[in-house]
């Protein structure tokens, strides 16, 4: 390696070894924790939405208990998606320019429109059509601020006849179908942002958007598993094991496809060994060892693949409790693993010089705009919002004809409900 990484001729500079362009020799990367979080959050949104569309479009009845939870999860995370970007921009007060004068040759320019489209035309509309009947009902029965919110969301429409509800159902189905490519666009364009940078061989290839989308699906499914288990645990409600098993199955097959395609990327890189491969290999080993080998590969992919794979063949022989605990662990591992993957992509591309002769070592700070403390806050915020959304829209006390997360019969205190 020393032959390929030029040794420093003058005093060893604190932040790099070998040769890096002077503009790269600072102590902080240009794109930091915030840019790692943004694709992570939009990936969770896209994946959670795909979970919901499995119910609506592909009519997987077993997943009905998590239908509303998935949509609300997607909404909670989508509402927070712009925050990392706004914190990262040098001039967030000029961010509106991206919608006023979008430069259409730039993948980043479609952000404003794709985000607005996905939020309003897909997610909010689908939620509205699903909840509309309940809004009318709850608006009538609930008092105070909560009642006001429900009435506001009816948008003045109070028609809940059979015909009207059938129309809702049909429109919701259409929006779901539209929503699948929209979700791919919402997250795929981020992958394309990286994939379009031909200046950087770690990022600039055609498979980057595909890898982003696949890992997004996996992370979204894992998030739904995680949220479902946490919700049932908090509420002390029995978990619908069939729903959980089907989610686990999708998670497993998603992981298989994701791991295969990511593996293909690495195999191709190593095989074709184009210019820059040596420095990238060195960088991956020297700077990304823990996040790549341990975080993304071992914890995030291999262990869940093993456990979930065993479940596919030997589910009957494993008790419910053990399966629940392992699903929880696996979903958490997958969430960590996909976060590690985002880290490896974003930071890995910045840890080596475009001169292909040097490797940088950046500090990651605790405080500050690119510090990981702010990152933790931005990651917890969607969960807080989700809690509020669940309180408002998935409350056990409110009767509903829609899909509920858990069987109510055994609780004894809440009104009878039925799953469609």
């Amino acid at each position: 390696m020393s032959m390929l990484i030029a040794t420093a001729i003058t005093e060893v500079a604190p932040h790099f070894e070998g040769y890096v362009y002077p503009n790269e020799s600072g102590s902080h990367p240009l794109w930091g924790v915030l840019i790692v979080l943004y694709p992570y959050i939009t990936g969770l949104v896209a994946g959670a939405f795909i979970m919901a569309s499995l119910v609506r479009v592909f009519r997987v009845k077993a997943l009905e208990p998590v239908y509303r939870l998935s949509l609300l999860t997607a909404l909670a995370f989508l509402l927070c998606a712009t925050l990392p970007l706004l914190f990262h921009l040098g001039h967030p007060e000029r961010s509106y320019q991206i919608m006023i004068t979008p430069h259409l040759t730039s993948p980043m320019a479609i952000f404003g429109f794709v985000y607005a489209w996905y939020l309003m035309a897909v997610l909010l509309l689908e939620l509205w059509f699903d909840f509309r009947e309940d809004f009318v009902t709850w608006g009538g029965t609930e008092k105070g601020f909560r009642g006001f919110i429900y009435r506001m969301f009816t948008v003045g429409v109070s028609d809940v006849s059979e015909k009207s509800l059938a129309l809702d159902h049909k429109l919701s189905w259409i929006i779901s179908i539209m929503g699948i490519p929209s979700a791919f666009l919402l997250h795929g364009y981020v992958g394309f942002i990286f994939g379009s940078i031909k200046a950087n061989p770690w990022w600039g290839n055609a498979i980057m958007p595909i890898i982003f989308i696949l890992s997004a699906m996996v992370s979204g499914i894992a998030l739904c598993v995680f949220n479902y288990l946490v919700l049932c645990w908090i509420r002390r409600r029995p978990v619908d094991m069939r729903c959980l098993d089907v989610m686990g199955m999708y998670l497993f097959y998603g992981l298989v496809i994701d791991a295969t395609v990511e593996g293909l990327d690495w195999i191709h890189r190593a095989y074709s060994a184009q210019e820059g491969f040596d420095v990238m290999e060195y960088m991956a080993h020297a700077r990304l060892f823990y996040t790549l080998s341990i975080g993304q590969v071992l914890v995030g992919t291999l262990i869940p693949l093993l456990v979930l794979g065993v479940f596919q063949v030997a589910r009957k022989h494993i008790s419910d409790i053990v399966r629940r605990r392992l699903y929880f662990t696996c979903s958490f591992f997958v969430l960590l693993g996909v976060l590690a993957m985002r880290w490896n992509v974003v930071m890995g591309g910045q840890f080596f010089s475009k001169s292909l002769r040097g490797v940088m070592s950046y500090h990651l700070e605790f405080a500050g705009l690119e510090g990981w403390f702010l990152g933790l806050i931005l990651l917890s915020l969607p969960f807080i919002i989700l809690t509020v959304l669940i309180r408002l829209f998935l409350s056990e006390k409110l009767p509903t004809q829609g899909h509920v997360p858990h069987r109510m019969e055994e609780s004894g205190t809440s009104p009878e409900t039925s799953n469609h």
Partner: protein
Amino acid sequence: MRFFNMPPQIFRLVLLIFAIVVSYLVARTLLTPDTFRDHGFYRGAALVELTGKIPVLAGKEACGARHPEILKTLAKGSHKSLSCEGCHGAVSKSHLDDPTDKMRKPPAGICLRCHEANPSRPAGFKQIVLHDPKPDNNHYDGACLECHLPHDPKEAPAEPDQASPAPDKTSPASDKAPTEPDNASPAPVKTPSEPNKEP
């Protein structure tokens, strides 16, 4: 009541969509800068603004307009491709406003900036080895200006006791080489009013 025979939820949605699209279009018209798309996909006024910054370096032509004698001397020798401000630093505002407020002389080590022997410099470029441990390879470890006039390096400075022609009013007295004891450290600033200090 049904408008246009549309189901009420569709009607409300259409209204909402219409309102959003219209407000976006209005905002876009109002907020797009005036000169955008004048020459391309950017604010045309930016071109004008970028030309409006004040230059810092005056340039050889500007110095030469006020100091033609020096430029003539420079053009004779191998330093003819040098710019004034490369050695003398950017012309200062105080010198522009009041030419009698002379610019600082370059530090004594400035010659080494280009001429210190360095294997990376092109082969034909004149270089001098300093502090060579092999004593017979040692060139002269003293001051460059003892033997070279900076504006015409092939010429040696005049001896201090010879009569020298009166300096031109338009050229500063920098053709006279002050003696420097140690060319590795920057010299103290000498103005013509100060006597030359011997070490």
